[in-house]
């Protein structure tokens, strides 16, 4: 199949970008979207043009490095699928495909389609952990975790930190990412003692970088791991509690 690509090119963070048009010819169905771009790049290099800069690593949908706004959708048209796992059979001959970087104040463009998502690290750093310095902790089975709780925590922990939620959200809100990590840690018994401080610190750090959630629900549609916005609700609730909890009494309920 042959495609027309409109790709965002931008020299650097402060340069002004533009769309460049390229032809991708005899694209195979079984190619992944990024393999299609690889081929385009090889041709660009042969023609002496600088290749398109885009991020990717695992190409298995797990590392969260790939991004891309494809025809106005974060990670493209296929639900629950990262760009690297998107295959060309989802496109048809003669189609025009527009490729843009994720856009948000917190995700400055580094070059072309490559963005900087370090704001996510700032949020994790603020409290996205359970303090357990390396040592000799209790035997793993001394902390039973009911299966439903463990499963839900895992659902939340599946977040790959790709930023599609932010990219898709009309408000550039970081809610889905933040709430997913909060849910993962706050749902587990191990996470209880730091729960309220963690919630406060992560939410307030998030708000240093991102917009606010008006419950559009677009993030959960774009999320390659299909993280539900219910975790956002959980976060809103925990944040309120965090403000009013008397933490001196925490010992009582853990």
């Amino acid at each position: 199949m042959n495609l027309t690509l409109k790709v965002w090119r931008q020299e650097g963070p402060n340069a002004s970008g533009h769309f460049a048009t390229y032809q991708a010819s005899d694209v195979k169905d079984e190619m992944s979207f990024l393999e299609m771009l690889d081929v385009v790049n090889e041709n660009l290099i042969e023609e002496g043009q600088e290749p398109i800069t885009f991020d990717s690593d695992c190409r298995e949908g797990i590392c969260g490095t790939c991004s891309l706004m494809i025809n106005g959708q974060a990670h493209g048209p296929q639900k629950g699928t990262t760009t690297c796992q998107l295959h060309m059979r989802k496109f048809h001959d003669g189609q025009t495909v527009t490729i843009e970087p994720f856009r948000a104040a917190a995700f400055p463009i580094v070059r072309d389609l490559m963005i900087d998502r370090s704001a996510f690290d700032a949020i994790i750093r603020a409290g996205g952990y359970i303090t357990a310095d390396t040592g000799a902790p209790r035997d793993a089975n001394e902390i039973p975790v009911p299966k439903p709780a463990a499963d839900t925590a895992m659902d939340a922990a599946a977040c790959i930190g790709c930023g599609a939620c932010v990219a898709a959200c009309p408000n550039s809100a970081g809610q889905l990412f933040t709430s997913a990590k909060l849910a993962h840690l706050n749902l587990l018994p191990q996470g209880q003692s730091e729960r309220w401080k963690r919630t406060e610190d992560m939410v307030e750090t998030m708000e240093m970088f991102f917009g606010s959630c008006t419950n559009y629900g677009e993030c959960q549609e774009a999320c390659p791991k299909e993280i539900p916005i219910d975790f956002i609700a959980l976060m809103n609730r925990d944040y309120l509690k965090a403000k009013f909890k008397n933490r001196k009494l925490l010992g009582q309920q853990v």
Partner: protein
Amino acid sequence: MTATKEPSELSSDISSRPIARRQKRSPFAVIDLYRSAVGKKWVMAVTGIMLMGFVLVHMIGNTKMYFGAEGFDSYAEFLRMLAYPLLPETGALWLFRMGLIVAFGLHMQSAYSLTVLNRRARPVGYQSKRDYIAVNWANRSMRWTGIIILLFLIFHLMDLTWGRAPAASGQFVFGQVYDNVAFSMQRWPVALIYIASNIALGVHLYHGSWSIFQTLGTVSAKFNPRHNPLRRSFALAFAIIVAGVNISFPIAVLTGVVG
């Protein structure tokens, strides 16, 4: 040492620039809450619910106009005399108005500051067409429908509460609530304004009264699959009833059922 750092101190690897400083701590949890965006959403939700309560009660009260002038006027009178002599005349009503005004003010304030924040969160928008899946006209237009409601309210108060022209009809008589409504809405542009604004209200409520559950963290689907579908139906029903019944009044007047 708190793990979070002020933007200035963010270490070398955080290269994406913050759009705000971390909020200051306040000795009062409530103020603390209001300083955060998530907290403002709580305020919106709570005030939103108050406003919902008001429009619902107000709508029910207004249905009295279907039972003739006396009933409707005395209802208005009753409102003014509520809790008399415990409170002075219109005292209860004023307390109630105060509550409303505060709720309305906070609701708008949060709406405004969140909107500003969201604009700052994406200074350069997408240069190609977005293809939305969940976003719909209702939740996208919250700010506009909200503003329409605000403008309507000013008009509405001039019209039926203060009796100020041009909103109010020439025949406005303080206390003659039934006639005031009738005279006012006989003017079709006014009737139209009422109809249009109540549609806007309905739209606003359609997203709003679904949204509150999310904001209030009454978590659904993943945690309690049963109550999730109810949220939508509730929102739909609430919006249709409030807007629908409200719209019925101007229509009733135009068609002569009332008046």
